[in-house]
């Protein structure tokens, strides 16, 4: 990966662009785009819109040759909420959108499923679905694993700059330590930030269903903001502030920090002792798409551990596919050490500390989002 633009750098740059007025033209452009379909026609083509740099460079080509499916793979999925805002006009009218498959973060995928904008996957034709990691199976919003198939998974924890903190951090409480006043960063991704704070207060986020149960954590963050403890709420650009020393510590995503530590050993990632938030981005089949054979072939292909390992070696997130660890060892070379990486394959004690958010009702989710928006000051 050396010398190439990696996923993190890409996200930072596109984050800059996205944060500017540039998101609006994209939004308008989307309005005119209901026609066109996925090209090719028939059942033998597929359009997968995914997050930037979330796949290696071979897979798409090799898959096309092996399966005969013409796959269009784009990287225009940049932000859950903004993508939703972009496709909402078409999908709410019952029109189809261009991509057949997209990979929203799990809570957003749940929203698509609940709104009826995702269709049942051709599970019978995806034998490799058996390789799905057990802990990801049967989400509350998709108990029978009919609508979603995870793409990659990761953890939100705490990243810190040893040079600025001068000590190792272990706990969520460290984010609220007075010694780091004005040096703490939190993510604008509500679930990742609030998930950690809630766990710090001893709550179980997978069992949380109403805002009232979480209000305490929101008060805590609001107080920290008013005291000047929080320096900024950021998107993926937190990595810049972290390596520049503007942040002593911040809420961060595991894969990013793995990359960062390589260049700057002072930057460390820790899953706090109170726990870390587990998240996954998951493939869903968008309503209106008719390419069920191609969808099945693709999902089956990437759920083959041999193929999944190639993707993991490149993107360095936790794979949702069983057997990837062994395949990485077999691949040898640069990939082999990844099989030992505790952030890619955490031990059981660590896994036990991870929690993921349950599904929130539309009304409760709105309360969470509004309360969080009020705190971030926007």
């Amino acid at each position, binding site marked *: 990966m050396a010398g190439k633009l990696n996923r993190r750098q890409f996200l930072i740059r596109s984050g800059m662009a996205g944060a500017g007025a540039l998101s609006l033209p994209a939004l308008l452009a989307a309005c005119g785009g209901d026609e066109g379909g996925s090209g090719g026609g028939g059942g033998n083509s597929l359009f997968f819109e995914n997050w930037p740099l979330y796949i290696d460079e071979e897979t798409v080509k090799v898959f096309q040759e092996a399966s005969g499916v013409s796959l269009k793979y784009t990287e225009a999925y940049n932000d859950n909420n903004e993508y939703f805002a972009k496709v909402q006009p078409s999908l709410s009218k019952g029109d189809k959108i261009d991509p057949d498959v997209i990979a929203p973060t799990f809570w957003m995928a749940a929203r698509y499923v609940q709104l009826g904008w995702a269709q049942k996957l051709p599970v019978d034709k995806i034998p490799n679905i058996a390789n799905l990691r057990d802990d990801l199976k049967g989400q509350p919003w998709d108990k029978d694993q009919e609508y979603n198939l995870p793409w990659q998974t990761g953890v939100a924890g705490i990243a810190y700059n040893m040079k600025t903190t001068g000590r190792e951090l272990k706990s969520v409480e460290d984010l609220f330590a007075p010694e780091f006043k004005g040096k703490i960063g939190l993510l604008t991704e509500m679930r990742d930030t609030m998930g950690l704070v809630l766990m710090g207060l001893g709550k179980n986020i997978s069992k949380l269903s109403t805002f009232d149960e979480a209000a305490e954590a929101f008060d805590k963050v609001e107080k920290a903001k008013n005291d000047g403890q929080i320096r900024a709420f950021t998107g993926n650009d937190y990595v810049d502030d972290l390596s520049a020393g*503007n942040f002593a510590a911040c809420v961060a995503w595991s894969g990013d920090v793995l990359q960062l530590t390589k260049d700057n050993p002072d930057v460390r990632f820790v899953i706090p002792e109170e726990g870390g938030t587990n998240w996954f981005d998951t493939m869903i089949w968008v309503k209106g798409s008719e390419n069920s054979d191609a969808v099945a072939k693709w999902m089956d292909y990437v759920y083959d551990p041999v193929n999944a390992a190639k993707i993991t070696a490149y993107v360095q997130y936790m794979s949702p596919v069983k057997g990837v660890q062994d395949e990485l060892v077999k691949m040898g070379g640069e990939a082999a050490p990844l099989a030992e990486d505790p952030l890619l394959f955490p031990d059981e004690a660590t896994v036990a500390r991870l929690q993921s958010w349950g599904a929130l009702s539309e009304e409760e989710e709105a309360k969470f989002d509004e309360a969080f*928006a009020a705190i971030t*000051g926007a």
Partner: protein
Amino acid sequence: MVTLSLGVIALGAGWVAGPSAAVVAAAMLATVVGLVSVAFVGGLETRRALAPYGLLKPGILWLSLFFLAPLWSMVVMSLSSKESRFDFFPSFTWEWDNYRIALTDFRPQFLRSFGYAAVATLLTILIGFPLAYVIAFRGGRYRNILLGLVVVPFFTSYLIRTLAWGNILADEGPVVSIIDGLGLQGAFESLNIMDNGKLLNTPAAVIGGLTYNFLPFMVLPIYVSLEKIDPHLIDAAMDLYSSASAAFRRIVVPLALPGIFAGSLLVFIPAAGDFVNAQFLGNPQTTMVGNSIQDQFLRQLNYPVASAMSFVLMFIITIAVLVYTKFMGTEDLA
């Protein structure tokens, strides 16, 4: 021309669906029909009298398509309500509550926006006037080069320049190191420019960013009005035993006022609606109304409240500009 106009109308109506389409179509049709009928039916005199208005037609067509129609749909949206959060087509229900939310919940952001924009405007005058003065009166043959230097940085993207300030003002960046090195941190803290040893992510950084980003919009108009001043007027004042400062006060400044006026509008209006500086140079307690509108629109999917906020912003700015115009006058805009 008539067919072309009708074509544009059809196209426009196709783009903006719903009630706004009707507004556009009506506005456009009225101008076309009116002018065409006058052209055929009216006498020579009326035709002559109305000819200038014919020249307005492209402008009117353009404005109805790209200004009136969006404005109308924004008004409608701002009075609508959503059944469900993911409802894309809110229904029009005279939902005045949207305006209450905009004015109460987002009051701090509005106040902050106008406050920051006002301070930034003052700063651009304080920095821009001497700069323009030197270029206009002392620039000599380097005038154009100096003017070019004012503008050159602005060939880079606005966003990139703002992000660059993030690096310059960073905690371990050059500016903070120099301040620390000179032992001036205390002084800056007492002036409220620094906060707890940091320069970035403070109100001062946001205002500084606004000032920097909008400075050319102040310098150029002031330069234009200063450049037009006949130096003989100043000589004449001196001949009449005026002191240099009196000549400056009573000749130069009044003649430069139109430039200052135009510059203030060009700086204040976009600065009040800006969200880039607050996003990258500010902290959670310095968000401006532009950030809130963006958040309501793209993250909360709350189009009605976002529209109401945009409308309030526009309204306040319009009033402010009208009041300002009343006192400053626009007869001689540079």
